[in-house]
């Protein structure tokens, strides 16, 4: 059974440097890193010390607020460094990897014996649980919650997004096993959204035990938050979970083989990459493996994730836990003479104030320049053009800025996450940091509710 959802509002920002659908050669990384900062709201308590030996699947740290949520090593090796920042905040746990990965063996049992308790317990122990994230608040799922549904978005619509159809080719069995395990966790439905206007891979079309939705439209149509809003919106007091399709396959393999195999496919893309392509790596891999000799000259920003929501890591940085793409774009730190008045053929805008709007197929090599300075809210209606939700974005943002919890609730804070506001942030004439504001709002509400 499948349903159609048409998203009308939004915009596809076409960037130069999409990854070719071929796999690049990559030698295994010497070091791997797990960053507690990837998991919003998690205060880590360490279980290992520098010099300890770990297997892939061994626990590294846990969440102080929810001790059952464990974070585990993606590879085997020795804990090389525990990097700390201000106030001794743990930033990275670095593992010096073995040449051959040794896995910790878990007793997963036959698929037929799986119950909610068993799946939850195993996923928590093996460090797979953080793959499940929840709405509202957009944080790691709480194992005590009974989600009304689990959502999987099987396509990414962000600029230079990786193609999940390609990435999950041949992983039908793992994916189905993952769906079967996840179905133990909810009494509601598992919603799987595929891109409506193409022929999705059979890994998605042949998946059983899911309700499939054909979603068409520009970005953010691929955002799970937008899909939830259109399929089964969240009311106050309700919880839904969501998970990335690659992680579904990882969960599936875990239950089939009893080991945490953290390998995944990522795309390396962007205008500053010489050969944009896909690579098979392991979570936490050092990016220099894919980028050495593969970057152009100049001042370049390397982002783990996409250009809308990713984090700046540098060419020697590491892949984030939730990231499936690495993007390299130019830094735009050069002042531009009369840039606000110049025609700007190479500038992207939704405003039609640049001639580029008459070239709909044009691809851009955008840099990281702000193109202006921060201002008060002046222009109206621009967020509404790119946020396909029945929500008043500007009013919601204002309610967060003044800390009005009741207004935030009424205006739909439970349904949004920072990534849903990424496009609003891009098109904002006043150059506001909207994702940060939404995150602050979610944190405030979570604090108020707990």
């Amino acid at each position, binding site marked *: 059974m499948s349903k159609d959802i048409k998203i009308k509002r939004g915009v596809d920002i076409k960037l130069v440097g999409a990854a070719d659908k071929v796999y690049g050669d990559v030698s295994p990384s010497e070091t791997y890193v797990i960053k507690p900062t990837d998991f919003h709201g998690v205060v880590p308590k360490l279980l290992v010390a520098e010099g300890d030996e770990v297997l892939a699947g061994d626990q590294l740290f846990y969440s102080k607020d929810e001790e059952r949520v464990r974070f585990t090593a993606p590879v085997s090796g020795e804990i090389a460094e525990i990097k700390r920042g201000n106030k001794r905040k743990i930033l990275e746990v670095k593992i010096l990897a073995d040449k051959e990965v040794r896995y910790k063996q878990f007793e997963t049992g036959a698929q037929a014996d799986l119950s909610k308790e068993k799946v939850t317990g195993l996923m928590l122990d093996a460090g797979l649980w953080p793959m499940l994230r929840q709405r509202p608040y957009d944080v790691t799922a709480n194992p005590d919650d009974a989600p009304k549904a689990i959502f999987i978005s099987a396509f990414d619509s962000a600029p230079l997004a990786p193609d999940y159809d390609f990435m999950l080719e041949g992983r039908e069995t793992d994916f189905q096993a993952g769906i079967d395990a996840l179905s133990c966790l909810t009494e509601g439905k598992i919603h799987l959204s595929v891109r409506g206007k193409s022929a999705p891979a059979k890994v998605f079309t042949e998946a059983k035990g899911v309700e499939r939705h054909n979603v068409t439209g520009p970005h953010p149509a691929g955002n799970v938050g937008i899909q939830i809003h259109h399929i089964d919106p969240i009311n106050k007091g309700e919880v839904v979970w969501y998970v990335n399709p690659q992680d579904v396959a990882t969960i599936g393999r875990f239950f089939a083989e009893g080991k945490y195999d953290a390998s995944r496919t990522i795309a390396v893309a962007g205008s500053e990459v010489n050969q944009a392509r896909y690579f098979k790596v392991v979570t936490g891999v050092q990016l220099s493996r894919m980028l050495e000799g593969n970057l152009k000259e100049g001042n370049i920003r390397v982002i783990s994730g996409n250009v809308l929501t990713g984090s700046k890591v540098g060419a020697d940085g590491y892949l984030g836990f939730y990231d499936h793409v690495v993007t390299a774009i130019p830094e*735009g730190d050069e002042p531009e003479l009369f840039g606000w008045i110049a025609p700007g053929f190479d500038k992207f805008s939704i405003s039609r104030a640049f001639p580029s709007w008459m070239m709909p197929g044009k691809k851009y090599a955008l840099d990281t*320049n702000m193109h202006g300075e921060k201002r008060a809210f002046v222009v109206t209606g621009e967020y509404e053009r790119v946020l396909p939700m029945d929500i008043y974005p500007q009013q919601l943002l204002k309610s967060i800025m003044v800390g009005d919890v009741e207004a935030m609730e*009424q205006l739909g804070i439970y349904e949004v996450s920072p990534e849903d506001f990424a496009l609003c*942030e*891009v098109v904002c004439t*006043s150059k506001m940091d*909207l994702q940060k504001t939404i995150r602050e709002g979610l944190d405030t509400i979570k604090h108020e509710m707990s």
Partner: protein
Amino acid sequence: MKKLLRNFFDGIKPNFEKGGKFEKFHPALDAFETFVFVPGETTHSGAHIRDGIDLKRTMFFVIIALVPSLLFGMYNIGFQHYSQLGEEFTLMSAFLFGLWKVLPMIVISYGVGLGIEFLFAIIRGHQVNEGYLVTGMLIPLIMPVDLPLWMLAVAVVFAVIIGKEVFGGTGMNILNPALTARAFLFFAYPTYMSGNAVWVADAGTVDAISGETILGGLAAAKEVLSQAAAGTGYDSWTPMEAFLGLIPGSVGETSTLAIILGAAFLLWTGIGSWRIMLSGLLGASLMGLIFNAFSVNLLMATPWYEHLVIGGFAFGLVFMATDPVSAAQTTKGKWIYGFLVGFFAIMIRVFNPAYPEGIMLAILLMNVFAPLIDHYVVQANVKKRMKRMNTAKA
């Protein structure tokens, strides 16, 4: 050139930074520097790429849209002056006469207004906002040509301080600042803002000139607007003359044609709200039709479509009602707001004999109601969410 300017700013900058001689005046230098150079500042949090547009470009585009009205206004000032005084003139001499009249108004408007903006930026230690770039051009365009310059200066001071800065500056104001300037003058110095003497340059010095506007004439029950009026002198005008703008009136608001050119540019670039413009036209047309149905005086009998080309209606609707800060901000709200602006503009025009131009008061009135309109639009959305929640629980 770029390097020269860059070196200049880099050279004087240390004086304006923390600990420098002119530390306090940093916002002033910053305003000039960012005018010349879009800063090389890059994204730090959130999205790594950003839209090419900023507030400077947005405001600049509105100014471009005002250029046809400005240029035509200059010509019309000369045209009205020479033709009503019965003197010979050419296109160029009429334009130069207008230029001579309007340029000081623009200089005063920008000089005084930006002076206050800079002062507030320095006192508050924030950046100079671009909002006044548009307001500074709008104010001279909605004033009578013979307005004393000191009065204009006082109006600008009032508009910027009371109309905007007391609310927190650009983006925070409730009323349209340019209209606040005009309303201030209208109430403070009514003899300079209405009547017969102010709409044609130097009309007050010559007895023979009628000098009144079409609306003034209609309100005084004179047949000043008709097809038959062609060639009957400057006591009356044809609808086509009103459309082209060869009529007495405020500097920039007489030519509906020039305003349409500006509106087309705003709509083409997506800077102006088409919803407000369209719904404003609909509202005005409906009110005009209602009056036509019950016409008991000349203003009511004026065909609804002629209402759209006389007075400041078109200018107000295109350049004032669409001000995003003081207009309604929700999409549905914009439809309601625009419609009511148009509706009340014609209503006030017909029912207010003392000052038969309704668009200014209609926009100011709706500025006050815009937050209320938005409130109800947003509440409807909230109710929908609450209803959904109750259904989910049931």
